Each structure stands twice: as C-alpha cells, then as structure tokens.
C-alpha cells in the first residue's frame, strides 16, 4: 500500500511535467492547428539558459524569471521569423520545420554546452516530510504545486484579461476576430511565446530529476504527446489531466508489471497513443471538429 501511494504521488510529480509540456503543445495546436515537435527541445534550451545565468552568479528565482523571459522571446521570435513566412505552406511542411527546429536546438545545445550531464539545482528542500504513514518528497509536492499555480495563472489570463479574451476569440474564429480589429498574427506569436514559457517551467522542474543534458526532454516529449492525445488536443484542461494520468500510469506500470520495468517505459506512452487513436481519436475531453456544410 505504501509503495502504491508513494508511486502515485511521485507519478503526479512527473505528471505535472508532462502536463506542462502537453499544455504547451495544446496552446499552439489550438490556435494554429500545428503540432510543435520542437516544444521539448525549446524547453531544454531555455533550461540551459537558466543554467548559464546560475553559473553567472544569479540566484535561483532571478534565473527562473530570466529563463521564462528568454523563452517568451524565443517562442515569439520563432513564430515571427520561421513559422509566419510559411503561413500558406501545407501543414506537413510546417511539421517538418518543427522537427528541423528540434534537431537544431538539440545540436546547438550540444555544441555550446557539450553532451556531458550537468546537475541542476532544485528550488525545493531535500529533506522528506512525514505525513502520517507516508513520507513525502518536497520535490514532488513542489512540482505539482508549480504546475497547478501555472495552470491557475493561465486560466486567469484567458478568462479575465482583454488579451486573453482576444486569444480565445482567435482560436475560435480568426475571420470574425479580424472583424473586431484583433491583429490575429500577433496573437499567434503571443501564443507561441506563452507556450514556450510553459515549456520552460517544465524544463526547470524536470532538470533536477534527470540532470541537464541536450537529450533530457526526449522521453518527456513522447509522454507529453501521449498526455495531449489522451486528454484531447483540443482541450487544455484535458491535456493537463492526461499529463497527470500518464505520470501515474508510467510509475504504476513500471512498478507492478515486471515486463515493463524501467526499460519499456516509453513503450507505455506509445501504446497509449495508439490505443487512444484507435478507440477515441478525439481523446477523453476533446471535441471532434464539426463543420457545417
């Protein structure tokens, strides 16, 4: 029983990271219909930025904020400089572009920082906390807390600011959005910027667990894809729920199914993707695209 609870709680913690990357994927997918394969590597790259700032003597939180600002500029700039010129290109071309960005970020990070793993500090205390019969790891609680806080902030942004309302309008109906004077293309760039920030936070949370290295987001990205597919690519809330479910599922299958162990962890994510697409392609909370003809 104790193992089970411990595995669920640590699953929630990694789930928070999957949820964040899944949320970043969904933010971009909803507004542009594009799946950004480079999302994980962008997060990795911004985490290296934070590492550089820490090395330059910055405190943890200033570096955290610095990395988020860098991420925003990176996402915003990429949309403007790389994605926007391909506005009229077929979707497949754009997908290839994001895969290209993935390899570019990976190689550039390896080139600048080498492929040697680096320890990355955690902002949370290391001493375990005892609650009743359970021993909780502050790191896990911290990650879950940060994820939920970020979600709350995003929700508030979308539901109580003018800009958030405009972004929801663009997702829903770009033509009508132009007709009320919204500069649609800037909103899309803003969406990319925000997605990059969400990803950056996930990178900063995962780095202390897996060490910092250019390939650290590979597995996370696949789990994030599974999370978004499970929750539904058209639902931000669904992607988050999917993230937490995938985190728990990863731990439980790893613990209780000996065949899976640690070696076949990624297979679980891929199996979930295939199963969801076979049984309910819209995911648990997604809506099928309905069009009047």
């Amino acid at each position, binding site marked *: 029983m104790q193992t089970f609870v411990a595995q669920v709680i640590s699953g929630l913690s990694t789930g928070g990271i999957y949820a964040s990357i899944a949320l970043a994927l969904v933010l971009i997918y909803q507004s542009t219909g594009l799946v950004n394969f480079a999302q994980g590597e962008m997060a990795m790259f911004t985490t290296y930025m934070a590492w550089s700032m820490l090395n330059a003597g910055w405190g943890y939180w200033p570096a955290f904020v610095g990395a988020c600002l860098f991420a925003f500029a990176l996402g915003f700039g990429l949309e403007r400089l790389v994605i926007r010129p391909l506005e009229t290109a077929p979707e497949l071309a754009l997908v290839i572009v994001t895969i290209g960005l993935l390899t570019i970020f990976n190689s550039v990070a390896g080139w600048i920082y080498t492929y040697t793993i680096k320890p990355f500090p955690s902002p949370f205390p290391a001493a375990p906390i005892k609650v009743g019969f359970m021993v909780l790891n502050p790191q896990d609680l911290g990650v879950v807390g940060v994820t939920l806080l970020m979600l709350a902030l995003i929700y508030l942004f979308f539901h109580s600011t003018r800009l958030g*309302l405009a972004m929801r309008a663009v997702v*829903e109906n770009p033509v009508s959005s*132009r*007709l009320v004077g919204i500069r649609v293309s800037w909103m899309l760039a803003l969406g990319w910027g925000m997605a990059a920030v969400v990803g950056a936070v996930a990178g900063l949370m995962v780095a202390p667990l897996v060490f910092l290295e250019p390939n650290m987001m590979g597995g996370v990205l696949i789990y994030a894809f599974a999370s978004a597919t499970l929750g539904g690519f058209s639902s931000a809330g669904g992607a988050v729920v999917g993230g937490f479910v995938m985190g728990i599922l990863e731990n439980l299958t790893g613990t209780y199914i000996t065949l899976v162990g640690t070696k076949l962890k990624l297979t679980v994510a891929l199996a979930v993707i295939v199963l969801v697409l076979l049984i309910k392609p819209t995911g648990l909370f997604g809506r099928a695209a309905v069009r009047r003809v």
Partner: protein
Amino acid sequence: MRAFLEANGLEAYYGWTKVLHGLDLSVPEGKVTALLGANGAGKTTTLRALCGMTTVKGQIFYDGQRIDGKPTEEIVRLGVAHVPEGRGTFANLTVFENLLLGAYTRSDRAKVAEDLDRVYHYFPVLKERRTSQAGLLSGGEQQMLAVARGLMLRPRLLLLDEPSLGLAPIMVAELFRAVRTINQTEGVTVLLAEQNASAALDVAHHVYLVETGRIVTGGPAEVLRGDDAIRRSYLGY
C-alpha cells in the same frame, strides 16, 4: 452631400476568379444605403472587398482616406463595423464576451460600459442571455448579437450583410427598426446588403441594384420603389 465611402472601379477576386467587375459606389454620410440583388449577384463580395477581406483592384475611399489594400483589422480600427453574413459570432464565448470583443480596439472603458447598456437597451434579449454561450441563441438572437457586437465598436460606418437571412418576419421588422434608430439617433452611416428588397427599401435612403458583379442602376429609395420594372423583378408584385 459628401460621399463618406466611395468605391471607384472596384474589382474583387477570389483566387483567380474575378467576382466584381468595376463597381462604382458612393455612400453618403449619415444615410442608409442598400445594395439589392439576387443570390450570387456580388453583394456580399462587395462588402467583403470594402473591408479588405478579398483581393481588390480599384480605389476605395473612406472618409477621404484610401483604404484599399489595407488589412481588415486596420480598416476596422478606423471605425468600420462589418456584420458578416452568417453572423460570425463566437459561438463558444458568452454573449457578454462577444460584446466585449466588439469593443476590443477601444480603450475608453467608461464609454464601453455605457455602450453596453445602450445595446442592451436596443436588444433587451441580449441582456437576459448575457451569460449564455452565443451558439445557444436562436437565429434571430444571434443576428441581434452580431449587430450589437458591431455597435460596440462605436462605428462611423456599419456594414450589414443580409441581416434578414433566415429570420422570422417579426424578427426582421424588429431588427430593421433598430437599424433605423441607430442611423437616426446616432448618425451612423449604414451600408446594407439585402435580398429582402421590401424591408431594405423601407429603411434605406439610397439604393443600388447589383447584378453579376456590376451596379445596374441606383437612386433614391422612393424613386426605385415607384419604378415598375424594379418592383416586378425585386419586389415581386
């Protein structure tokens, strides 16, 4: 009277297909002008071309300023509210949010609140249903929402595309009453595209007839109402 909106030799294209063939149009300030014509005559395209939603050739002047070639959102920011055919409401957002979006480009918050009361006064049903999703409104209510959203811009020019489409006659009457009030009490210039000729002739001061992407004739509404040929082809009596 000076032309508030003027198009000279307006051509519009969807891809390679030319839809408007050199259309000349002049909309006087503070008046209601109607574009009448059958389905497919080019009324909708004319309104779309005027606010940058198609590729255009020719000149468009709005309040003395060239606007052809400008992006839609910039034309809207000059005070042109376009209420599209099929309404174009944000179906998953609430009525209130739709109205707020109408005022998106404005920064005078106090006046926006005032205008919200004003459109609720014109269309009381929108106030009752302000928290429901726009997609759940009836067709008539959605049309009112679309017009109300246009008014939230506090426009100087209101473009209405087939506002009567799919509405019950009582709704059509209510809507056109509101259009007349908006024009008379607030001095908003209106350009209206309509198939429902009798409703449009009642409210319009000036009328153009559009056929296959050209203006075939135009004149004061009372003159066209008295014209036998027009009465037969467009009014059906």
